[in-house]
């Protein structure tokens, strides 16, 4: 990263004894703690899923096409995020911001599809109360959706700054987080949509 971090930050923030920049180091630890949150939830779901054969029928009512489309959307937005990072490394703040806006667009499409899916499912009586399968479905995709929303807010913030050429290193950080959200969905998709 080619720019200097603001001089008012503590000396501590500017040091890098481990060789990994402080911001990125913190993101790795954040992801480590996220892995166990999603890991615990998915492990619990998987055990119940394998215990109840009839959950396969319930899973048949999720919309695999919508799920596949959303996977496509997230993968595409991840591509934009990494291209944004590339631009930021060149010092091209405006380019980075533009790519981040595309990423945000992808996230919004994802949420729109998700909302449409949920609406349809709830209309057909597949509510969170119907069965523990649906409770897991809404809880897990909801928690993931919450991460999407957090990512969108963070990216909007970073894009605004990057546009003015400030804190360009954060483009990478928010990107790493976004790729993680993408990777989680990569597992949610087969777990809730494909396996029947």
């Amino acid at each position, binding site marked *: 990263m*080619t720019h200097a971090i603001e001089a008012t930050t503590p000396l501590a923030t500017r040091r890098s004894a*481990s060789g990994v920049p402080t911001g990125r180091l913190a993101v*790795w630890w954040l992801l480590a703690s996220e*892995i*166990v949150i999603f890991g615990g939830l998915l492990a619990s779901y998987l055990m119940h899923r394998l215990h109840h054969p009839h959950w396969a029928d319930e899973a048949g009512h999720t919309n695999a096409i919508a799920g*596949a489309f959303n996977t496509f959307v997230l993968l595409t937005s991840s591509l934009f995020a990494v291209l944004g990072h590339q631009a930021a490394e060149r010092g091209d703040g405006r380019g980075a911001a533009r790519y981040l806006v595309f990423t945000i667009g992808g996230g919004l499409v994802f949420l729109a599809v998700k909302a449409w899916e949920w609406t349809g499912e709830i209309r057909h009586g597949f509510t969170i109360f119907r069965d523990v399968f649906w409770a897991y479905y809404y809880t897990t995709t909801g928690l993931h959706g919450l991460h999407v929303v957090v990512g969108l807010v963070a990216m909007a913030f970073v894009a605004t700054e990057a546009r003015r050429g400030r804190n360009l290193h954060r483009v990478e950080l928010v990107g790493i987080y976004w*790729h993680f959200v993408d990777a989680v969905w*990569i597992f949610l998709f087969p777990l809730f949509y494909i*396996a029947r």
Partner: protein
Amino acid sequence: MTAETGVGHGHVDYLKVYLALLVLLGVSLAGPLVGLWWLTLVTAFGVAVVKALMVAAYFMHLNIERRWVWYLLLLMLGFMIVLFAGVAPDVLQGEGQHWVKSSGAVPGH
């Protein structure tokens, strides 16, 4: 920092990685279409692992990050496997040594 982390970014064509991911997405849908359960297992979950690893390696740049970050994230996954292994004998199973699950009403009155 450019010198340290910038190396290697240019060597990966993100578009190629992206296209490979899309192809894999197509493959993961193949299992249910054919309708073989073991094929679904491979195509859906095997492919998911490959996809996630590709995203981690090329998009999150773990391929050029310090080695220990891989180990850290894998350690966390390892703990989840420990959790699964410890819990599955009770939650996944319907019965075990001297116990059985029953959803029916409790006998008696």
